[in-house]
C-alpha cells in the first residue's frame, strides 16, 4: 500500500555546542511520517527524541543546530514541499508553528499560563490560525473543549489552569494544539506526568482526535506499554539514531535489534513474580565522543566483533520493517531472540 508522506527526514544531524565541545545529539536519522498515522518514537532518556522533533518546529535551544541532512514537509496548503531545515528566519517559522505542526508537551501542570483563563489560551490559538470573528472563535473554542472531553465548557472557559487537575490540563493543552488546526501533532511524552488511569484516557483521546481532525501524529515516549495500543508504527531510538523501525506488530512480535529486545525485556509487564526485573547494563554512550561501530555494542552481551568496528546499515526484514544490526547480515551467526518475544506473542500482552 502506497501511503502519502507528509514529513520526510533525510540523514538528519543535529549538534549542540556546549562549553566549546560539540555534542552530536542526532546522528543521521532518516524517517518518513505518513499522513494519518501515529508514529511512536521510543527510546530512553537522553536518546534525542525531543531534540529530534523540536527541530521540525525550529524550537531547538540556541546552542543547537542542524549540521547535516534535511527535513521536508509536504503538507502545506499549496502542496509545495517546504524544506524545514532551510528555514532561517523566525518569521518563516511562525507560518509553520502551530499552523502546520503543533506540539503537546510533557508536563501539563506547567505548560499553561497560570494567569490566563483556559478559554483565552485556546482562543488565542484559534484567532492566530483560523479566520473569523471573536464570537466565532469563542464558539469554536467551546467546541474544542467538548472535543477533548471537558464537561460544562461554558463554565470551564472562564476558569484558570489551577482549577483543573493534571489530566484535565493535558486535555486543555491538547485542545490548544488542535485549535491551531495543524497537519502534524507532535506529542512529547504526553502521558509521562499523568497517573496510569488518566494515561489511557489521554491516549484514547489522541487516537480519536487524529481521526476527527485528520492528523498525523508523532508520539514520543519511553513507555513501550503506551506505544503498543496506540501507535501504527514504532521507531526505536538509541543514542541519536533510529536502530529499528516497523509497524507495532513488527516491533512487538518480531523485533530484531538487540536494543529493542532489551527494551522489551525490561517491560515490567513481562517480569515474573519473584524474579528481578530485567535491566540493561551500562549507560548510553557519550555523545561528545565519536561513536565507532554500533552505538549499542558496549552494552550488548551478544555483540559481534564487527559491531565495535563498523556501524551497521539498515537491513530490511519486510517492506515495513528494518533494523540496524549486523545480526541481520547473512554472514552473522544466528542469534536467538530473547524469550520475551515469545511471552508477548503467546501471552497476548499487547
Amino acid at each position, binding site marked *: 500500500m502506497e501511503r502519502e508522506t507528509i514529513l520526510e527526514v533525510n540523514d538528519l544531524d543535529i549538534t549542540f555546542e556546549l562549553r566549546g565541545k560539540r555534542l552530536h545529539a542526532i546522528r543521521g536519522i532518516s524517517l518518513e511520517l505518513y499522513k494519518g498515522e501515529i508514529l511512536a518514537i521510543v527510546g530512553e532518556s537522553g536518546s534525542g527524541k525531543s531534540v529530534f522533533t523540536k527541530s521540525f*518546529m525550529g*524550537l531547538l535551544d540556541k546552542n543547537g543546530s542542524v549540521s547535516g541532512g534535511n527535513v521536508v514537509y509536504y503538507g502545506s496548503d499549496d502542496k509545495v514541499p517546504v524544506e524545514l531545515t532551510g528555514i532561517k528566519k*523566525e*518569521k518563516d517559522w*511562525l507560518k*509553520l*508553528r*502551530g*499552523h502546520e505542526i*503543533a*506540539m503537546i*508537551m510533557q*508536563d501539563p501542570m*506547567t*505548560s*499553561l*499560563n*497560570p*494567569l*490566563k483563563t483556559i478559554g483565552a489560551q485556546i482562543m*488565542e*490559538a484559534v484567532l*492566530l*490560525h483560523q479566520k473569523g470573528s471573536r464570537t466565532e472563535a469563542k464558539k469554536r473554542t467551546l467546541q474544542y473543549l467538548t472535543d477533548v472531553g471537558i464537561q460544562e465548557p461554558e463554565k470551564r472557559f472562564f476558569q*484558570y489552569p*489551577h*482549577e483543573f487537575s493534571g489530566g484535565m490540563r493535558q486535555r486543555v*493543552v491538547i485542545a*490548544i*494544539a488542535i485549535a*491551531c488546526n495543524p497537519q502534524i501533532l507532535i506529542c512529547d511524552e504526553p502521558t509521562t506526568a499523568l497517573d496510569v488511569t488518566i494515561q489511557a484516557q489521554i491516549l484514547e483521546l489522541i487516537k480519536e482526535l487524529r481521526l476527527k481532525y485528520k492528523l498525523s501524529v508523532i508520539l514520543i515516549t519511553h513507555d513501550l506499554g503506551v506505544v503498543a495500543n496506540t501507535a501504527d508504527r514504532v521507531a526505536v531510538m538509541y543514542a541519536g539514531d533510529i536502530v529499528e523501525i516497523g509497524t507495532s506488530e513488527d516491533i512487538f512480535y518480531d523485533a530484531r535489534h538487540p536494543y529493542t529486545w532489551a527494551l522489551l525485556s525490561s517491560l515490567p509487564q513481562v517480569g515474573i513474580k519473584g524474579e528481578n526485573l530485567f535491566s540493561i547494563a551500562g549507560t548510553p554512550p557519550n555523545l561528545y565522543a565519536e561513536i565507532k561501530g554500533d552505538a549499542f555494542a558496549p552494552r550488548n552481551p551478544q555483540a559481534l566483533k564487527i559491531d565495535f568496528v563498523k556501524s551497521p546499515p539498515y537491513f530490511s526484514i519486510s517492506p515495513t520493517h528494518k533494523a540496524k544490526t549486523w545480526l541481520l547480515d547473512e554472514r552473522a551467526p544466528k542469534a536467538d531472540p530473547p524469550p520475551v518475544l515469545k511471552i508477548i506473542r503467546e501471552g497476548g500482552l499487547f
Partner: protein
Amino acid sequence: MLLYLSKRIARSFLTLIIILTVVFCLLRLMPIEGYFQNFDKMTPQQIEVGLKEMGLSDPLPLQIVHFFQKLLHGDLGTSRIYRSNVPVSDILADKVPVSIKLGIWSMVVSLLVGLPMGAFMARYQYRWFDKIGTFFIVCIQAVPAAVYFLYIQLYGTQLFHVGLLFQIDDPNYWILPVISMSLGNIAFYGMWLRRYMIDESNKDYVRLAKAKGLSEGNVMFKHIFRNAFVPLAQYIPTAFLNTVIGSIYIESLYSIPGMGGLLVTVIKKHDNAMVQGIVLLYACVGVLGLLLGDLMMVMLDPRISLGKKAGDR
C-alpha cells in the same frame, strides 16, 4: 472577598492603634527637660505647672485615653515647640500634599520608564540595549545617590534654567527633583522585571505559547510580562510610600517644603504632638501600602484568593 477586605481593614486599624500607643508610651519615657526652653532656671513648681498645661501630669493610661478621644475628633494636638501653638494637622496639611505630589510623579515616571526598560532588556537579552541598561542599573545601584543627585542639580539647573530656590507653582522646578527621585526606582523596576521575565521565559508555558505559533514579541508581552509583573506588583505601593516619606535629601537639596526630615526635626525638639501626628501618618501610609500591595497581587494572579483559606477549592 469583601469579608476578607473588611477583616483586613479592621486589623489594620488595630495595628495603627498599637503603633500609636507604643509610640505614645515611648515618648513619655523621654526626659522632661526637653519640653522646656530654659529647664535649668525653672523651679519645681514652674515645671509642674508647665507639665500640667501640656497635659503631661495625668497618669499615663488617662493620657492615652485623652489622646485617642481627641484623635477621633480629628484633633492631632497642638505643636508647642516646632511652631508655637499651631495645630499639628495644619502644619501637616501644608507639607504632606507637596511630598505626595512629588511621590506620585516620581512613581509615574519610574514605572513608565522602568517597566519598559526591564521588558526590553529581557526581550533583547545580551544585546546592546540590555548591556546599556545593565550598565545604567549598576551605576545607579553602585554610586551613592547623593553623588548623582548633586550632579543632576549642578547640570540640571542650568539646563532647565531654574533657580536654586524652589517655586512650587512652576512645573519646571519639579522636573529635577522628580528625575532624581525616580532614578533609583527605575533601576529597581528595570532590574527585577528583566530578571523575572528571563526566569519566566524558560518555563514550559512559554514553550507552548511559542509552539502555538505566537511571535517572540507577542509571547513576551502577552504571556511573560504579566507573570513577571506579579511578584513586582506587591512592592509598588510600598515603593511609592517610601518615596513620599523618604525624600529627605532631595527635599532639602531643592529646598522643597515637603515633610521629608520633619520627623527627625520634631523628635530632636521634643515636640510630642508633632511626633505623634507624623507617626500616625506614616503608620497609616505603611499599613495602606501593604494592603494595596496584597490587593494588587489578588487582582493580577487568579491563584491568589484572599477570601478563601488555603486548600479551599
